[in-house]
Structures are given as structure tokens and as C-alpha cells.
């Protein structure tokens, strides 16, 4: 697992937006500070924010909206 990724702490379904009619939390090219919310994980019908544990610029989303993820899976790749 590389150092320049943000991982999901929980397994579940990944969402890039807080609700279907809302814009995504972050887009490719956006800058990210520690503590910023980059997405949600739905686990057992409850929603948990994924917060950045490092700062940088988003190079890529490694997981598509509404994809299933495992705990520890990399979600976002950052340019540091």
C-alpha cells in the first residue's frame, strides 16, 4: 500500500456525495487538507465519513461511486 493514498477505514459501499442530489465532496485536482471529508462509506445501513489523514492534491479516485470496498482499501491517490 503506497503512502500517497487515503484508505477506507471500514468495509462497505463507497459514495462520493452526501446525497444523490448533492455535488461530490471532492473532484480530481482538488486540494485536500487533513480532516477533509472525501466520501462516505455505507456499512450496515449506517453512513461514516472518510476523512483525509494526509494533505495533497487528488490525482485519481481509485474506486467508483457506489462501488463495494474492503477495509483498508485505497480510495484516493494524492499528489503530495
Amino acid at each position, binding site marked *: 500500500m503506497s503512502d500517497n493514498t487515503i484508505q477506507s477505514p*471500514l468495509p*462497505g*459501499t463507497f459514495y462520493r456525495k452526501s*446525497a444523490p442530489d448533492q455535488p461530490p465532496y471532492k473532484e480530481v485536482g482538488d486540494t485536500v487538507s487533513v480532516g477533509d471529508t472525501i466520501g462516505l462509506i455505507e*456499512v*450496515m*445501513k*449506517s453512513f461514516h465519513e472518510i476523512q483525509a489523514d494526509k494533505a495533497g492534491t487528488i490525482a485519481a479516485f481509485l474506486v467508483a461511486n*457506489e462501488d*463495494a470496498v474492503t477495509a483498508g482499501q485505497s480510495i484516493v491517490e494524492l499528489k503530495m
Partner: protein
Amino acid sequence: MSISSILIANRGEIAVRIIRASQELGISTIQVYSDADKDSLPVKMADQAVNIGPPQPLESYLNQDKIIQVALDSGADAIHPGYGFLSENCSFADKVTKAGLKFIGPKGETISQLGDKVVARKLAEQSGLPTVPGSNGLVESVEMAKSILKEFDFPVLIKATAGGGGRGIRTVNDWEEFERLFPVASLEAKTFFGDGGLFVEKYLPRPRHIEVQVLGDGENTIHVFDRECSLQRRRQKIWEEAPASPLNDAIRNTICKKARDFAHMVGYCGAGTVEFLYDETTEEFYFLEMNTRIQVEHPVTEMITGIDLVREGISIANGKKINIKQNDIAIKGHAIECRINAEDPRNNFLPQPGHVEKLRFPSGPGVRFDTMLYAGYNIPPFYDSLLGKLIVWDENRTSCIERMKRALIELEISGIETTKTIHQALIDDPQVRQGDVYTSFLDDWLVNGKFT
């Protein structure tokens, strides 16, 4: 034509429960499953198992056309929806029937009527059931609310007409809050339930949740007595009992008969539950909603009456008339159910998907554990957190509590945290022991640091 094969459009412990009932009736079972449930217990137990797609419910357990196609291809005669998922979806019920299959539950039309909370309230009033004082119809704007609600003291509840099961409800304390939250609630209802319609009800301070089990075959309707489900966390039941301890015989008689009359009036087919709020101080009860499906907590009723509600539901769908007479149904003893969820009560109920290492199931006199767990099972993160239901019967409530306490000690699940620990704390609480609880008791109890 009688049912010889049932497709189970659900998962988890209720799928296991339906397979058991089917096996006892000599009916073969087809279990549909998502990629995440390939190794699940119902898949192992059913006569046939068919993969229906990815883990996300919309692509598998909620995929109506796919499920119906699998039923037709596999030669099923009927579909059992269990609870949740498609169980209260009227268009699914209609589609199943149109495909020439039997839907194990009421008619689509009944589901549609009772699923609309405003319509259900009106029907309840028509049958003589009291409802919580409120708007008696949709409230379309804050101005309209102001003209209707003058006589009510705050707080009030704003409810989604398409909601239910404790979802789509907001407590509002004054007009300022009402004006702010009304549009938000409408948008939320539109997003979550596909219908932004709202209505308003008076907030009852310390109600108890009482419900009545009914069975109908379209001609005959019977009640199978009452349950109490006041122990809830964030409006989700966690501990249920039968019979409801606050009711005396006269009130029990009234509430059960009125619930039965209501179900009869709507021509109810199958197993259903009429839910009420009960104000102990005034001994008044108010209709809340009717759930048009088998409920999670149905076993406590089975334990005190000896009636197998899942088998009865299948038999009714099979076109058989109910052959149980109301006068032959009696309450014997007391039953309690504790829901064992994959949640960590010591960490804000954080979901606990993961690997179950060791398991020890409780047993002995009066103990039943309905579960989909087995040692080595991997609990997937995509579905609700219910792992099993520990159900205990005894001669009376006091001894039932002691028996539950003993059974909880016997239950061992290692590898993940569960709600077993909160039940062990609740069972020693003096108010719980006395049965002195109300619907927000558990939330208050947690806020007051009673669980550490």
C-alpha cells in the same frame, strides 16, 4: 394449484426462518443471493440457490424483474419477501401476481393503502381506532400547518407519509424550528421514500409501543394477541416482549379486537401487525401504522400462543382458510426477544462486519435462537446488522427475565462485538425489570451514561 416450491427474496435470519417453515410443510426452497452472500447459511440450507448479482441491494435483493425471472426459470410457485427489501413494495406484489406466481403477503392494493401513512390513519379512524391527534391529512406548507395546528402544543412530530418503521420522523419544538425543518423534511422524504408528502402528529411524552399480531385470509381475521416493543435505540426496536406487560385484561381485549376489526375491514390477507402508542397514565392507545409483512419480533408471539406465524402465512397464500378459532387462542406464559446485532455498544454502536471465529449457542428449557450465524462465517457490510434473535419463554415475566439472563451468558460470539453486552446491562436495570419503560427510555438511558 398448491405451492410446492417457494423462492425466498430475502437473506439472513428471516431467510433461514422461511426455509425451516417450508421444509416442515414439504415445500422445496429456492434461495436467491448476492455475491456477498455466496457462503451464507440460507444458501447452504435451501434446495436450490441462484446468484442474482452484486452486493448492493439495488442490484440484487431489490432487483424485482431479476427475482421474478429467477422464480419463473426455477419453477417456483410463490415468492416470500420476508421483512425489509421488497416486502412492502406494492408494485412488486402486483408484478409477482401478474407473472402467475403467488406473493406470500397481502394484495398489492392493501400494501399500497396501508403503506401510505395518511391513508392508513383515515382507514384506522373509519374502523373506530383512535389515532394520535394531528393534521388528519397532508400538510402542504408552513402556512397550512399554522392554520391546522393552532390547538396543539409543541412539540409535534413531522412525519413522511411514505415513511414507516421509525424512519422519516422529526421532532419539532416551536414554530421557528417548524419553519426551518419543514422544507428539509419534505426534501428528505422525497429523496428517501420517493414521496415528499408530510403530515403532523402531536408528540406524546412517554408512550409505550404496543402492537397486535393479526392473521387474515380475506374472509376470516383473527388476532394473535399483543407485544410490547418500547425498548428502542433511535426508533429501532432492540428488545421485544409478549404479552405487553402494561395492559390489563380489559384493555388487552379492546386493543386486540379493534386491531382485528381494522385488519378485517381492509380485507387483510396473511400475517400483519397493527402498531399503537399507549399512554399508560390515561390508558389510551393510538393507532400508529400497520406493517403488512411478517415482523422481526414475530417469535415472541409464537412462543406464548404456540402458533407458527410463518407457516400460517404460507398456508394462507396457498389459498387455505385459517383453521384456528379466535376462542382457541390463549396466552401462555411470557416471552422476551433480544436482538443480537453486529454493533459495538461501547463504541457508539459502530457496525461490526467481519469474521465470526467461535460460536456457542444458548440452549436448554425455553430458549430459541433464530440466526444465520455459523462458526467461520464472514458477516458482510452491505446489509442490516441483525445477526440473530435470542428468544426465551417462561411461565411469567419475572422468571423469563432470569432465563434470558442465563441464556445471554451462554451465548458466545467471538471475533466481533455485538449488542449482547447492552442486553446484559439492560436486564439488570431496575426499571427494565419492573417493566417501567417507554419508547425513548433506551436513548435516555444511554445519554445518562447507564451503559459504560
